[in-house]
């Protein structure tokens, strides 16, 4: 007993100490420094490189979330995040541009997830065709600047790369218009009916993109638009890279592609920054309250003067416009756009990000995007690379004396990324049903639910709905 209480009290002291800004701040800085140092010393020729980078890079990318949650002053948080975004990651990116690539991908998916979160998380409209707006944005830019011989190309009317920034706005605009056009006829539908119709729209947009190479070639059909234009790299960025190179004694072999990546990196974090601000301001406004009201109870909301269709359209258009902007960036970054990139699976994985992170909350959604993207692009890939590396050197697992080489090729992890991803999704949902970082409002709803459920089978709320052909709200049934 005594021992236990001592332990408890010492744990309490530790916890109290952790709450002190100085201690917490010091720990944070140490944490980030250690991660950076490890990453800095990692060498690709190391046998265990994939393993180590899988351990450390996510730690670094996730640090903003820890910083934000830490009990330290606001300016300190800000400073740390700025240092991370504008010094540390660019520096690491110069050493190994795959880190930049990863962060850009994360930003792209985070932007999409934040947009979908407006539709699903804020307004409660289940949209399974969200990727269509992303496609609209991507095609908006790609059609005009691709190397493929589309109608625009034939006429010689090529837009120059510097029009890129203008096209981000155009992408926002076009996607929003498409969102409104699609939304108008169908936003009266409820819940799952809306889901299937949006799914249908998503597929329709994809099929049309796939086929608009005839009779007039707009999209180059299934071949996709390749050689898509990129914004010109400002000279100072390239100079900056060279300066840093000589200052730090790095040897950068690929200055041009690297400056290009850096440019995209800065564009991506800028746009994410803007999106976050927009999403927060919307959430925290009469519009956001109206969306929440619609999500909770449509009938009550409209009876209280909330114009349903207009607010839903606004949500749809806002979500779409985020995707449109991101789409333009994606097309330029990837230099390739094809209908295959806009499949239902993509819509679903963005939805997964939103829900895994914590629907309705901005920070949660970001976290979901970071985690799911890193899983797919870093962790699972590295797992395969690691096993392959071990196989190459005929690594033997010590104690059990197992030759990695003997592992059957049919079971190469590279082939089963989906399986692992699927398992992780299930596990995450079971252990954190409200998401990894639930929005307070939802967390509370859920906790009550959990405990009020008697034996697992009965949720006392379930019954009040009109059954079978019900007019259900798209999110949880809260009676």
């Amino acid at each position, binding site marked *: 007993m005594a021992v236990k209480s001592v332990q408890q009290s010492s744990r309490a002291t530790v916890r109290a100490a952790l709450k002190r800004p100085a201690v917490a701040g010091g720990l944070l800085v140490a944490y980030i420094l250690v991660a950076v140092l490890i990453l800095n010393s990692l060498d690709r020729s190391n046998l265990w490189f994939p393993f180590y980078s899988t351990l450390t890079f996510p730690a670094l990318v996730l640090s903003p979330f820890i910083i934000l949650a830490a009990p330290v002053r606001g300016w300190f948080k800000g400073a740390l995040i700025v240092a991370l975004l504008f010094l540390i990651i660019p520096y690491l990116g110069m050493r190994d541009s795959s880190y930049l690539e990863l962060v850009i991908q994360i930003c792209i998916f985070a932007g999409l997830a934040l947009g979908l979160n407006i539709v699903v998380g804020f307004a409660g409209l289940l949209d399974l065709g969200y990727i269509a707006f992303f496609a609209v944005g991507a095609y908006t830019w790609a059609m005009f600047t691709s190397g493929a011989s589309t109608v625009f190309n034939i006429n010689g009317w090529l837009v120059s790369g510097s029009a890129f920034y203008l096209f981000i706005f155009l992408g926002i605009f076009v996607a929003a218009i498409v969102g409104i056009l699609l939304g108008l006829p169908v936003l009266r539908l409820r819940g799952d009916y809306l889901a299937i119709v949006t799914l249908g729209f998503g597929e329709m947009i994809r099929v049309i993109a796939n086929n608009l190479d005839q009779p007039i070639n707009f999209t180059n059909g299934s071949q996709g638009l390749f050689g898509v234009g990129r914004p010109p790299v400002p000279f100072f960025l390239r100079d900056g890279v060279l300066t840093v190179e000589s200052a730090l004694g790095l040897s950068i072999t690929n200055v041009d592609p690297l400056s290009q990546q850096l440019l995209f990196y800065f564009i991506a974090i800028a746009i994410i920054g803007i999106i976050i601000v927009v999403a927060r301001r919307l959430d925290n406004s009469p519009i956001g309250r109206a969306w929440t009201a619609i999500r909770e109870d449509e009938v009550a909301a409209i009876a209280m003067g909330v114009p349903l269709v207009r607010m839903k359209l606004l949500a749809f258009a806002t979500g779409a416009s985020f995707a449109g902007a991101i789409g333009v960036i994606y097309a330029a970054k990837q230099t390739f756009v094809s209908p295959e990139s806009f499949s239902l699976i993509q819509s679903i994985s963005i939805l997964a990000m939103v829900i895994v992170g914590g629907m309705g909350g901005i920070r949660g959604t970001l976290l979901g995007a970071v985690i799911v993207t890193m899983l797919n692009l870093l962790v699972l890939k590295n797992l395969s690379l690691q096993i392959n590396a071990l196989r190459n050197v005929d690594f033997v697992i010590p104690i059990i004396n197992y030759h990695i080489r003997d592992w059957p090729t049919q079971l190469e992890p590279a082939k089963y990324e989906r399986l692992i991803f699927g398992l992780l999704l299930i596990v995450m949902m079971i252990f954190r049903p409200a998401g990894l970082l639930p929005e307070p409002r939802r967390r509370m709803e859920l*906790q*009550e639910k*959990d*405990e*009020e459920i*008697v*034996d697992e*089978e*009965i949720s*006392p709320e379930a*019954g*009040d709905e*009109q*059954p*079978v052909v019900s007019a259900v709200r798209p999110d949880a049934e809260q009676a």
Partner: protein
Amino acid sequence: MPPLLELQNVHTFYGHIHALKGINLFVEEGEVVTLVGSNGAGKSTSLRSISGMVRSKQGSIRLAGQDIMGMKPHEITALGVGHVPEGRRIFPLLTVQENLEIGAWNVKSRSEISRRVEQMFELFPRLRERFQQKGGTLSGGEQQMLAIARALMAEPRILLLDEPSMGLAPVLVEGIFEIIKKINAQGTTILLVEQNALMALEVARRGYVLQSGSLVLQDTSVNLMNNEMVKRVYLGEN
């Protein structure tokens, strides 16, 4: 002999809300007992704890001496507890007859079920007229009758009634109380929860008064009706 139903020091929580804070009560075979209390006092929670709809954290609930706490609702129902939940909750897309048949879920014999359905039709002639109608299209009063009849189909030893008069027109309220008396006269023990304390105390032999999760009074109905506090708060007299 132990009472038919006995609650000892029952604590029930909804999340962090401590809804029942140590309830002790008992119901003897053949009695009508009522629970009186204001909104959120924990009346419905008491009934839900008994029938297993919510799981209590602490205490004991015994039915004829057998501990039923922690059992699942369908197991408790099988032991002879019938519960007419708050808000009637009939199955809206099943017909009246199907609703009744569901009530006798644990009865295997078809003929026995038919017999009971017939019995219910005698008790509630209105239901016989509508036996093919979907439950959801019945009027409020009819739904209430159906809910009671459905619970009776299992021939429970004790019937838990949660605000059977809520939202009913005055004329129907009278009818419902007539029926409660009738059922009781036929031998069913009843634990009744009512906002309409006056009428509840009129049919009940004994009553308990609940206030924010605790029992504050227990007495015979007659005494309760003359209690000053009860008069003021629950009977609306000043």
